[in-house]
């Protein structure tokens, strides 16, 4: 009897625990301590990948930050590449040595989340605890100031919670040879159909050219899914959804482009497509789709003090120009859980300071070529005059940023989970493979390539 009672009790307790677990998943994992930041002395570390010039900007703003919070010591560390940051932190988590703040991409966060190591930001963002003259959380004004697409990336983890804040961003833009376009009376394509017609025309003007170079095959695939509204991946349930008719069709269409010599990708071309675009040799391209942050690589080298041609920048072609979609890339920041909640709050204060400071965002953008994450940066005088200088030559980075700021409503991000980077690698390979594989029945070939990619994803995921 006693035994039975005990077993029942145990069962009951277990159900409670399980119920708790089930609920916990959708609940924020960090509670803001009463009173917010208590002014105690804490040291917080920030892992990033910034080069020397950006570190200078960062440290100058950390100094400003310390004027407000003198007891928070910030140690910023350059850990290497994004991959280095990810491997280092995922090892450090196993011993509880992870930093407080880190530069991150969504799939990194998904990885850290296997250990439940990343603090959710929801309670911090919504906190109304007093802090200095204002509140600890974000005011409605501050929330609204973030570019929506960038801000939404923090919630792409399938549970509706907020894990990251955008730090500095980039996207893809279309670079074109303005001099050539003007000389031949060509217009910049707004849709993919226009792009096809244009490529055909360029090919007839200069048969030795590859009209369009697309830097990243993965971005092309994912962006097409988004523009067509067809599934790519999902953070919950069945992760890999990209094997569908719509996607196979667009792959088949672009395969034709490739076969006609209209387009190449960096992987297939075997070298930087920007190198092809800036080339002044016989083989060159007249359009190049690449990262907005790499604008300076898309500018030809000066010959006798002048650029051989002028570069124009535009939004990438769309399926529906009324509802444009462009990929959001570039680092966000996440905060790690720590035993001392004050460290987390202090980390939040720094993250909030850097991501909501118009001055910092402006200066960082000018120094890096990345896009600021706040709309209000446009009103910053220094930034506005920087953008005003934008041209297809010396100030190409400013022009690129300007184009990005104009398409602020177009940004999308894809779902993040452990394995989302595998999906990205697989669709990258898929596109290159579909372009370069021949067969009697091309539909069958493409179907098989899709099937293989899904299998590979599922094995790894």
């Amino acid at each position, binding site marked *: 009897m006693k035994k039975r009672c005990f077993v029942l009790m145990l069962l009951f307790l277990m159900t409670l625990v399980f119920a708790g677990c089930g609920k916990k998943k959708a609940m924020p994992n960090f509670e803001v301590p009463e009173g917010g930041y208590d002014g105690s002395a804490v040291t917080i570390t920030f892992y990033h990948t910034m080069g020397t010039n950006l570190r200078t900007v960062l440290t100058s703003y950390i100094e400003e930050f310390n004027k407000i919070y003198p007891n928070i010591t910030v140690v910023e560390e350059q850990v290497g590449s994004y991959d280095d940051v990810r491997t280092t932190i995922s090892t450090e988590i196993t011993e509880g040595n992870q930093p407080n703040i880190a530069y991150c991409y969504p799939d990194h966060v998904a990885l850290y989340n296997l250990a*439940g190591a990343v603090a959710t930001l929801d309670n911090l963002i919504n906190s109304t605890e007093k802090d200095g003259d204002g509140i600890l959380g974000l005011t409605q004004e501050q929330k609204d100031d973030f570019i929506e697409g960038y801000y939404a990336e923090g919630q792409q983890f399938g549970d509706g919670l907020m894990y990251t804040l955008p730090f500095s961003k980039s996207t893809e833009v279309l670079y074109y040879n303005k001099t050539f376009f003007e000389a031949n009376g060509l217009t910049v394509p707004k849709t993919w159909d226009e792009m096809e017609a244009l490529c055909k025309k360029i090919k007839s003007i200069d048969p030795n050219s590859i009209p369009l170079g697309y830097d990243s095959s993965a971005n092309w695939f994912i962006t097409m899914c988004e523009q067509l509204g067809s599934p790519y991946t999902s953070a919950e349930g069945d992760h890999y959804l990209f094997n569908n008719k719509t996607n196979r069709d667009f792959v088949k269409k672009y395969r034709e482009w490739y076969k006609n010599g209209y387009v190449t990708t960096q992987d*297939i071309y*075997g070298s930087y497509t920007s190198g092809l675009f800036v080339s002044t040799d016989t083989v060159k391209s007249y359009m190049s789709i690449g990262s907005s942050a790499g604008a300076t690589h898309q500018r030809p080298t000066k010959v006798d003090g002048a650029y051989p041609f002028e570069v124009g920048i535009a939004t990438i072609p769309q399926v529906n120009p009324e509802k444009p979609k462009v990929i959001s890339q570039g680092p966000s920041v996440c905060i790690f859980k720590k035993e001392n909640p004050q460290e987390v709050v202090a980390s939040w204060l720094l993250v909030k300071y850097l991501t909501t400071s118009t001055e910092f965002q402006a200066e960082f953008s000018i120094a890096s070529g990345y896009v600021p994450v706040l709309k209000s940066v446009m009103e910053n005088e220094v930034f506005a005059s920087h953008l005003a200088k934008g041209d297809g030559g010396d100030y190409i980075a400013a022009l690129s940023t300007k184009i990005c700021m104009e398409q602020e409503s177009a940004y999308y991000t894809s779902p993040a989970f452990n394995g989302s980077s595998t999906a990205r690698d697989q669709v990258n*390979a898929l596109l*290159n493979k579909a372009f370069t594989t021949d067969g009697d029945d091309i539909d069958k070939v493409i179907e098989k390539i899709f099937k293989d990619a899904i299998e590979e994803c599922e094995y790894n995921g």
Partner: protein
Amino acid sequence: MVESKSSWKAWLYLSPALVLLLIFTVWPIINTVRMAFLENYSGLEAIGGRSFSIGIANFTKVISYKKFLDCLKTTVLLCVITVPVSSILALLIAVCLNSIKPLSRMLQTIFFLPYVTNSIAIGMVFAAMFNIIGNNIGSENEIITTAGIINNIIEFFGGHAVNWINAGSTYAANMTVMIIYIVWNALPFKILILLGGLQSINKQYYEAAKVDGTSRKRIFARITVPLLSPMIAYVVITGFIGGFKEYSSIVGVFGKTMGPAGADKRLNTMVGYIYDSLSLNRQGLASAAALILFAIILLVTLVNLYVSKKKVHY
């Protein structure tokens, strides 16, 4: 007589090495075995509070991987071809270097230079040499920006350019490049080791041979090779061990895709598989794959040791 006395001494001499090995090598290996038998083990998930059942699921998952045999094939092929080729070439170079007088200092210095060359540079130069940069290679719309130095040389001698490492290239062409690259990469180390070994051979042997008027060939076959055989055995055995762990050289030429554009992972190896699993934090799978690899290398090494015991002159 010697045995009983030197036994404790031997352990004394070995103790510093053994203590460090226990901590930094044996313990991690035990841990590897543990992870291999915890089904779907992930270090991060373990921290997150997940528990794992004991079983052999990791092993079956590795073996059931569709491309497992491909990984194994590439690994074995590279190993079986590159180790003998690089060892023989290195031996020839070392012996030649050892037997010349004029220019010898300069040439030796040159053969040292690879040690101060950054490994990134070595990968870059290879890509540049074999890379055909262009579009639609091999079709009617073909456009070639540059065919690469190697193809320029081939064309200079009247041959046809080969698509070595780019989209549409064949497995055979890819492997040829990898073999050249690996041999090239392994040469400096092997030359250094064999040169060191050659210098340890007492000159009196050669002087005696000279007095007898023995031919070069005979000296090489009867004196140099037997006396150098321990070092040759070393170079071959460690070459095989290293060869089975081939990974970074393939990344050096093909990048992380481990294959030409359109054929990702075509040249993936066992260690490549382990890396992929580790980057997704699946240490269970990685450990199981490592133990399988271990079993294979162990077998090969035992064969090697058996052969060398018969052939090596100590």
